[in-house]
């Protein structure tokens, strides 16, 4: 249920890094622009280096909020202050505050290592930010926004089925 559908995982798997990185950066900077309150809540941890490692993709996403940088890499996980690992769609659900991080962690679906204070600050900041990824994606897609946002919503609702029914 939580792992990435193959028809989505496969293209990401073979896509060149620069392309994945470009798309991820676009989303990232869009989110930062739309949610300036996120910075305030992060406090000093905006300087921290966060790494997100989806367990169903051979990729690592490393983010430093203050520098507004995002890097994508393959292979060994890069250096980071704090790292969270889990199925991509749960990571995205977390980003949107749709899933309860503690509940996922208690159930061992997520694993968190490194500076826990940095991770907690990010979790709490995201939780307050009301990020809606399909909407952010749609914004990027310009004239096709309606189509992209709709598809993304559909994928999300399938992926998080049973986890977010009463949370929305």
């Amino acid at each position: 249920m939580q792992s990435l559908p193959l028809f989505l995982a496969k293209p990401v798997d073979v896509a060149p890094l620069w392309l994945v990185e470009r798309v991820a950066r676009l989303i990232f900077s869009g989110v930062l622009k739309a949610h300036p309150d996120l910075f305030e809540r992060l406090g000093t941890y905006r300087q921290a280096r966060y790494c997100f490692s989806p367990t169903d993709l051979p990729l690592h996403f490393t983010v430093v909020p203050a520098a507004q940088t995002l890097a994508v890499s393959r292979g060994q996980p890069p250096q980071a202050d704090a790292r969270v690992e889990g199925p991509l769609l749960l990571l995205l659900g977390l980003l949107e505050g749709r899933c309860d991080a503690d509940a996922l962690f208690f159930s061992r679906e997520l694993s968190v290592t490194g500076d826990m204070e940095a991770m907690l600050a990010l979790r709490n900041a995201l939780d307050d930010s009301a990020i809606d990824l399909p909407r952010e994606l749609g914004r990027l897609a310009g004239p096709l926004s309606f189509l992209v946002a709709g598809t993304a919503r559909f994928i999300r609702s399938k992926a998080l089925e049973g986890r977010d029914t009463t949370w929305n």
Partner: protein
Amino acid sequence: MELICPAGTPAAFREAVEAGADAVYCGFRDETNARNFPGLNFSREELRQSTALAQRKGVQTFVALNTFMRAGDEALWYSAADDAVALGADALILADFGLMAYVAEKYPQQRLHVSVQASASNADAIRFLVEAFGARRVVLPRVLTVQDIARLTRQIDCEVEVFAFGGLCVMAEGRCSLSSYATGKSPNMNGVCSPASHVRYRQDGADLVSELGAYTINRFGPGEASGYPTLCKGRFDVGGVEGYAFEDPVSLDVIDEIDALRAAGVSALKIEGRQRGKAYVAEVVSSLKKALDATPAERAVLVARLRTMSEGQRTTAGAYDKRWR
């Protein structure tokens, strides 16, 4: 009975209001409250907006200033009390006698609630708080059985609020220095128990090891449900036997006791969890709201769902049940 709901962020506050809270409790982003975690809690402006929202929806706002004023830094607590009053808090939740005296004297009209951190566990203690500070409500420590609570409410002239769901302190609240013994950060003075700054998760082969400061708190086998590295829910060695010396990683859940608590004269049920996300708040608040008016059979369904949100994915009635002792 009123439902008193937690909010660690304005987003969680909105969810609690939408989900049917009678009152939402929250704190400022500093050491004046007992959930002083990074990225959590309210600025003055956020509290102003939140109380305004609550007022429009007919919901009350309680502000928790439930740590103990550190000698030399009292101004932080006094100004937090001044601001909470000015921003329209319906009640202040206090633990420190010095701060209670300040509020009682300066704002005699302000509703003063006694935090669970003050550890008022009997009728004489509550009479003292009513007499000395004009306390209107006491949040009872999680050391009493339902029968104890029923006996207590008959003897006092003060509302009683009890914890119904969420994290469970095994030790008498506000009287525990275990975390500061291991980390140097005090729940009572710094507002944080088992602080994230001192938490480490370490993968040891197939096991997940949790550490607090220099101490191993637990070790989880593959797939085993885990918990916070809170000292009182750690696994230790006592007399050569390994196990949960104080309590398993479980959450408190007294939904089954709702009718008994109502009959015992309890005014309000409190949900723990200002450190949990808005998804958790929405889920737990709406479930408890339904549970208040549900039949026992309907309640069982609600409980089963909530359990998956809990630490260790299990719950206990804790001290409310005499056998827990």
